[in-house]
């Protein structure tokens, strides 16, 4: 049986449509990330599932029960809010107990669940503190605890890591991954941070412009982006896109770039649309060559990241391209360099933006 099922969800705020015909099915115990930029509709979709917004049309089903007609508290869903939304005048224990008391869970059962959650989240010493007496990370644990004790069928996490500092964010990411193994429920996380989505999710739902752009496991999203939006949104720095003309021979597509460079891709020729194509290439597949072979490029910006160096350059037809170089690269701003494009890692995009990839990717 599917965990969560969305069919034909539509939503507008006034005259502004925010969600357009969303269909989605979650497996049991699946960890899903809604990934997209601000305004893509991902938070609205989460709130519709929670019952904090009402969809204009469509249905929400959870484990065989239609829930979009139920009030939020009766849907079998728990949510961790972006700003935690802990009740400020209640201790951590009271925060966690509040929902259970309202649901008339017996007192000893409430205590057992709080003790269990405190154990898992290592917040037992905080139980009698109020939110104002805790750090951001501690508050978040309590917020997660408040969701855990409800033993929901579905967890909703709204940008769970966005309020934490960088170090804590990495640690919490690991802990969320561990937590996922322990809970017997599906999880949906809303995020605009692709690293979070990539590391935590079983499947990523990439959203933009009111619609689901692509659904798939993280590596599939990365290696076979369905369209230009997904290709550019996932991966950092973004994939380079270059106008390209298809050359007509061979089993795999070869294309000519604006500056005359020919790239032999591993994308099957069959099925490619006619018309103007675009070549998509990730920075790790573009290397600054040490010898005098390869495409000429002029260096515009050098970013030394420690484990690698990113070189933002311009081809001779002024097209921007991002390349990678060794950590101790000697490339400087304004240099003329030669770059090698690894055609085997290249993607092609049709005039409508749809992506085409090597068959075995």
């Amino acid at each position: 049986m599917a965990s969560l099922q969305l069919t034909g969800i539509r939503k507008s705020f006034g005259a502004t449509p925010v969600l357009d015909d969303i269909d989605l099915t979650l497996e049991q115990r699946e960890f899903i990330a809604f990934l997209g930029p601000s305004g893509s509709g991902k938070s609205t979709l989460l709130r519709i599932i929670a019952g904090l917004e009402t969809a204009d049309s469509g249905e929400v089903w959870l484990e065989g029960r239609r829930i979009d007609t139920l009030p939020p508290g009766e849907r079998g869903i728990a949510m961790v809010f972006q700003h935690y939304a802990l009740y400020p005048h209640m201790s951590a224990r009271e925060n966690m107990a509040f929902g259970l008391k309202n649901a008339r869970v017996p007192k000893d059962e409430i205590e057992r669940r709080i003790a269990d959650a405190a154990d898992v989240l290592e917040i037992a010493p905080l139980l009698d503190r109020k939110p104002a007496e805790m750090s951001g990370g501690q508050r978040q644990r309590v917020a997660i605890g408040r969701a855990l004790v409800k033993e929901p069928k579905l967890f909703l996490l709204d940008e769970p890591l966005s309020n934490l500092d960088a170090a804590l964010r990495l640690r919490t990411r690991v802990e969320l991954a561990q937590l996922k193994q322990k809970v017997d429920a599906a999880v949906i996380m809303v995020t605009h941070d692709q690293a979070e989505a990539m590391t935590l999710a079983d499947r990523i739902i990439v959203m933009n412009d009111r619609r689901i752009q692509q659904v798939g496991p993280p590596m599939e999203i990365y290696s076979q982006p369905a369209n230009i939006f997904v290709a550019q949104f996932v991966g950092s720095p973004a994939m380079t896109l270059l106008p390209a003309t298809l050359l007509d021979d061979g089993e795999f597509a070869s294309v000519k770039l604006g500056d005359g460079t020919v790239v032999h891709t591993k994308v099957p020729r069959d099925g490619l649309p006619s018309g103007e194509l675009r070549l998509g290439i990730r920075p790790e597949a573009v290397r600054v060559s040490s010898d005098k072979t390869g495409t000429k490029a002029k260096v515009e910006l050098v970013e030394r990241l420690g484990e690698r160096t990113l070189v933002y350059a311009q081809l001779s037809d002024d097209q921007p391209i991002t390349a990678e170089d060794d950590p101790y690269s000697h490339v400087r701003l304004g240099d003329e360099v030669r770059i090698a494009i690894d055609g085997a890692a290249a993607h092609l995009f049709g005039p409508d933006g749809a992506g085409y990839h090597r068959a075995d990717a």
Partner: protein
Amino acid sequence: MSASRDWRGLLFALPFLALYSLILIFPLLRGVWLSLNQVDLFGDGHFVAFGNYARLLHDPVFATSLVNTFEVTLMIVPPLTVIALLLALALNRAGKGAAVVRGVFFSSAVLSVTIVTLIWRFILAPDAGLLGEAWKAVGWQPLPFLSDQHLVLPALALTTIWWSLGFPMLLFLAGLQQIPEDMYEAAALDNASRWTTFRRIILPSLRRTVVLVVMLQTAAQLQLFGQSQLLTAGGPSGASRTAVLFLFEAAFGRWELGYASAAAEILFLIILAVTLTQYWATGRATGAAGGG
């Protein structure tokens, strides 16, 4: 750092301190001095030490005025606080309708006490007043609100509540706006009924505002004067004479400035004591509620 203090900073506060001393500290001390003298408007008067205070203790009119003041304050503050809170809850929403109604409820607060008592005289008058007509319409005998000893304080309280509603409502609205939206959403996901949300989430968040409203209104209503002076002049037979009306009559009716000042000092101490007690009691309640 140098331990010596730079007193030049004081210069910046000087204009304020001078004005504050002139119009607040000096009259306050002057009042204390006056209360120790027997003074009338003409002549210098003479020092009587605590003579005025001793006389006040045995003055049944003063005692009645204090009792009246406490009674009317108790009739006003609790219902005023509850009604203002309920109004704020009902009107805490976006939209033109709510904004207009908020304005209507606040409008009474900008009226002067003369207008307010004029309006309420029309409402309370038994022969032609609004309430009298309403009573008659139901077939009852109209009630003489302003001339019955037992009805006059409730009538004063009613008038005052109507007049004073706007500002506490505004304070509660401001308090409600401080509660983040996700608090209500968390409560909805926690299966909290409307009543539970109010009792466990909204009310605790408004605790400081409730304390503020009760303290401000208590201090204000213990000084109730205009309504009593203009509606009934303290009558019938002193049943609506408040403490401030008493000292007004003593000072500007009988010209006993020293005696009136002594009454004013006593009222001042009472208000101070009541307010501090409220502050202390709510502080303790917070401490007992845990955490701190």
